[in-house]
């Protein structure tokens, strides 16, 4: 898979826990991208290369640089810590070209954007897309404390209608009430903590919103019982790859030099599908249907694991 070479041109603190990184190309114009796209940063941490996806938060019309926002995450396996503690302006990085699994449903009458915390990031690009799309958007921005409102300036500049919901003052957002007053032809987009996404999708389902009108992007996979180690046996190349609990199957394969196509890296898009010859699969994705999982002969390498101690893969 192709990569782009970029330099960290600037690092700015947006808040106590969020920093904005400006990435400039080292070789010509950067590819144009659609709002909602992400890039994957290849991070040279001390524990080995970590690949993490970050939403592009800048204008889709800007070709000179990309911007991403990184949340300092105490539970990070090293990616965001590396960026917060070790990365410096001037550093060179490899990134994947932009790819989008969370794009705007163009003909919708209205777009309701519900952002929780760092989930605001893909919507920052939405707000800088075509003017006639932005005019139909409404943003509900959920934060814990409104005194710390990352990207407030950017949101104000877009002139989009925005409601800030402060959870430490008002408690949880009343999602059902918010959705119940939406008009026909509204599409809802949600990005943020898993709990917020689950609540929005459950509410939309309960109210009877049509299929295809609810869009979401997860930044981390759904909660699952903690991972167990297992062995991946590659039938065609006759190799064994050990998958420890802290690595996904995809990451373990990459460490051992086996390349599998990927995109979102958290089980949301289906790109990293591989064939399984034997073994019980522990499906942890959030994009396949039950039927697709039931056949038992395919899995998503970036997120799913083995139910028992090994899988035989058709690789």
């Amino acid at each position, binding site marked *: 898979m192709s990569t782009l070479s970029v330099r960290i041109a600037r690092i700015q603190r947006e808040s106590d826990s969020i920093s904005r990184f400006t990435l400039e190309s080292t070789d010509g114009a950067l590819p144009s991208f659609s709002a909602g796209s992400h890039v994957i940063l290849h991070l040279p941490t001390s524990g080995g290369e970590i690949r993490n996806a970050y939403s592009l938060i800048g204008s889709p019309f800007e070709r000179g640089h990309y911007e991403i926002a990184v949340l300092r995450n105490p539970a990070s396996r090293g990616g965001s810590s590396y960026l917060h503690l070790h990365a410096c302006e001037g550093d060179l990085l490899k990134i994947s070209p932009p790819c989008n699994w969370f794009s705007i449903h163009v003909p*919708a*009458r*209205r777009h309701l954007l519900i952002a929780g915390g760092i989930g605001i990031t893909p919507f920052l690009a939405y707000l800088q897309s075509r003017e006639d799309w932005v005019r139909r958007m409404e943003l509900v921005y959920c934060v814990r404390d409104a005194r710390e409102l990352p990207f407030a300036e950017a949101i104000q500049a877009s002139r989009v209608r925005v409601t800030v919901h402060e959870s430490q003052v008002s408690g949880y957002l009343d999602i059902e009430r918010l*959705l*119940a*007053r*939406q*008009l*026909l*032809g*509204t599409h809802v987009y949600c990005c943020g903590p898993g709990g917020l996404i689950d609540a929005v999708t459950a509410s939309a389902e309960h*109210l*009877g*919103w*049509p*299929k*295809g*009108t609810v869009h979401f992007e997860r930044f981390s996979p759904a909660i699952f019982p903690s991972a167990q180690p297992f062995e991946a046996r590659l039938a065609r190349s006759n190799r064994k790859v050990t998958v420890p609990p802290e690595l996904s199957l995809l990451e373990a394969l990459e460490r051992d030099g086996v390349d599998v196509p990927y995109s979102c890296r958290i089980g949301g898009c289906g790109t990293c599908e591989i064939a399984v010859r034997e073994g019980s699969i522990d499906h942890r994705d959030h994009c396949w249907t039950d039927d697709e999982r039931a056949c038992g002969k395919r899995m998503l390498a970036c997120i799913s694991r083995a139910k028992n101690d090994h899988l035989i893969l058709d690789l």
Partner: protein
Amino acid sequence: MNSVRSKPEYHPLVIDPKRRHLVIASEGMAGAKSVKLALGTDQPQRFVRILQISPLREDEGVTETLASFPPEWICMLPSEEFLRVRLRNLMRLAPADAALYLTGSERFLWDCAAVAEGSGMSRNRIQMELSGSAARRLYCPHCKTVTEGVTTNVICCPGCGHWLEVRDHFSRRTGAYAGVRVDAEAPGQIPKVMEVFL
């Protein structure tokens, strides 16, 4: 004729009693009957509108059925055009989870669907029951003429005068089937004209 994937399929209306906002548009009596079956008449939390074109044929207890509903549910419109205008107004104020149930001739179904989709309704929230004529709206790609009420397998296009085979390839956007010149490769050989879309 091969079964063409664009050709639409229709089913008897199954009104979902969990829907809190329903609009039913009907060319005949079938709409009201389906509502009675699914909902009964005593659901105060719900927004229901049954759009009908008057006058209705007196048959199968039509007056009785209509009288059993709350009066605000019934909208009698003097023509199909008025019905579509009322439909558009209802769609403009409808909530995101509104459902639309249509029953009537094929042409009626797709003309109403176009109004609803134009107002932002998702296609999967529109149910269609064919309870009227299956006569086809036909588009002639050679002269762009649209001919209504085609019931035969071939017709002479009133626009260009060519004989057209009436195909199954269907456009949901316009509610029309495609025709194509039937004798371009066999001049003068027009198949026997048969009434098939009734």
